[in-house]
């Protein structure tokens, strides 16, 4: 191939495909390179795709019978747990049942593949139906840069391809982002987590009955507490798919390294087994069949974990390659950040093409656009919440205290009952101090 592209996109996940969709719709010429057999074949997520950008990229996707989302989310539950109990904050609303949905559960091997098909259709409908390509099964080995440091294309094995810009959307294990010098060669474990997950299959009717689902509606349930994670920083999740649930743990990697040792049974899969056997979780997945076990690293949402910069001369970085992710207690957001950053990166490429200028000066518009979008605004605004959630008290103290209070409050055993403030004082005296709670409460109100 002799031609030069407006952009080479490295990675056919959500960030890369979202960028590709914007470029195709605006008649730009691009080459997207995916190392897997097909888009999604290398991707793992929890996962819920939050927000409404999908409806921007694929208008009225919910009317498409082939649309590969699993369920739209109307039911949210946050569960604090100790060894035998669970105390939940539960919210369900039909207001979320109307498109464009607030969030949809996805299985990436299906979802990304479908999204890639939508991009193919957009290319076919564009002014250059034979000028843009999605290539799979190709590993990009190197981003090519000229003597002045401008990115000029990529090398894959013996082949090179050239473009005015390179968009790195390679995912969290961002080897190329490191190679071009935007991120450290070694990224330490303290900003990283590892997710382990199983997809557990059910008869669709069993699933709908068990989780009180209506048509295509779905539930998300996050779990907090040492009883969920074996005391390791992090949490658990359960999301309903069409005829399965995604269940798993997200574990702080540094904590996992420090709390475990080669002799102990504290591996991520041991902890997942224990989580699944917790009495409250067990009753949710009883009778299902494990269809797949998977794992992937994920960033913990600490903004300090981001690359030094997300653009350079001829270069942009989007999605989790830029460590864009947030979990501030409300939802785990990563795929929506990938989608928005991919869209904004592509819009910057279009501006650059229009101006005939792909310099770093021009491409910094991408940084500016991301800063004024919800992505970096929320990441900056909720950093305190991110740090709070990773504190020891959130794993140990709070779930135990709340479950104990629940136990006392709901207990009816033929002895005279105490008033709530008295029960509360008892629980606090057993598990914590008022001072600790005041500090925690103060931090929580300020950070959320």
């Amino acid at each position, binding site marked *: 191939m002799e031609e030069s592209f407006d952009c080479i996109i490295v990675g056919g996940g959500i960030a890369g495909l979202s960028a590709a969709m914007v470029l195709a719709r605006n008649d730009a010429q691009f080459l997207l390179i995916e190392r897997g057999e097909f888009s999604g074949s290398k991707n793992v997520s929890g996962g819920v795709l939050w927000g409404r950008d999908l409806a921007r990229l694929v208008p009225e996707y919910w009317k498409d019978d082939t649309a590969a989302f699993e369920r739209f989310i109307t039911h949210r539950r946050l569960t604090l747990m100790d060894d035998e109990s669970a105390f939940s904050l539960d919210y369900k609303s039909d207001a979320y049942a109307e498109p464009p949905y607030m969030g949809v559960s996805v299985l*990436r*091997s299906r979802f*990304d593949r479908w999204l890639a098909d939508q991009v193919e259709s957009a290319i076919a409908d564009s002014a250059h139906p034979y000028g843009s390509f999605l290539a799979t099964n190709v590993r990009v080995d190197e981003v090519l840069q000229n003597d002045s440091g401008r990115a000029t294309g990529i090398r894959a094995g013996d082949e090179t391809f050239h473009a005015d810009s390179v968009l790195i959307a390679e995912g969290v294990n961002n080897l190329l982002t490191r190679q071009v010098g935007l991120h450290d060669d070694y990224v330490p474990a303290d900003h990283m987590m590892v997710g382990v997950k199983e997809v557990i299959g059910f008869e669709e009717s069993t699933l709908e009955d068990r989780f009180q689902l209506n048509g295509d509606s779905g539930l998300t349930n996050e779990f907090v507490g040492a009883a969920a994670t074996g005391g390791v920083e992090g949490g658990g999740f359960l999301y309903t798919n069409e005829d399965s649930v995604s269940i798993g743990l997200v574990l702080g990697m540094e904590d996992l390294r420090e709390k475990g040792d080669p002799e102990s049974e504290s591996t*991520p899969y041991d902890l997942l087994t224990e989580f699944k056997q917790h009495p409250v979780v067990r009753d949710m*997945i009883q*009778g299902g069949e494990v269809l*797949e076990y998977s794992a992937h690293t994920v960033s913990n949402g600490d903004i300090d974990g981001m690359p030094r910069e997300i653009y350079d001369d001829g270069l942009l970085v989007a999605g989790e390659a830029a460590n864009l992710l947030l979990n501030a207690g409300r939802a785990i957001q990563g795929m929506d950040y990938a989608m928005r950053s991919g869209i904004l990166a592509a819009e910057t490429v279009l501006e650059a093409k229009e101006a005939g200028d792909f310099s770093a000066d021009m491409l910094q518009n991408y940084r500016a656009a991301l800063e004024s979008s919800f992505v970096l605004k929320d990441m900056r605004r909720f950093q305190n919440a991110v740090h709070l959630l990773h504190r020891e008290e959130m794993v140990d103290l709070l779930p135990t205290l709340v479950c104990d209070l629940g136990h006392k409050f709901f207990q009816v055993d033929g002895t005279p009952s105490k008033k709530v403030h008295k029960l509360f004082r008892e629980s606090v005296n057993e598990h914590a101090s008022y001072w600790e709670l005041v500090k925690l409460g103060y931090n929580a109100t300020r950070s959320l």
Partner: protein
Amino acid sequence: MSNATDDLPLAERLGLVSYRNEGRSDPEPHIEVDTDICNSTCPHKCTTYVCPADCYKIDENGEVYFQVEDCIECGTCLYACDQGAVSWEYPDPEGGRGVTWNYG
């Protein structure tokens, strides 16, 4: 059919995973581990208990060794090893191994 609440051994969990070039007996490893570091100066040998696919094992002499076959490319060892023993790249689609998720 197994019940989802059964204690499913890791080998059975990994048995559910689809790999590229599954038939190839000698896949090109995409991770290289300098186990001399693991077995001399490393204070924790953490890869042996943080790897979700148990690719890092300890033999009867207490020595760490690495085998790539079950690797699901999650990236954990890329960060968890702070001793500089792990060199990581993505598997070559032609000669390498690596995962193809059915659900993901």
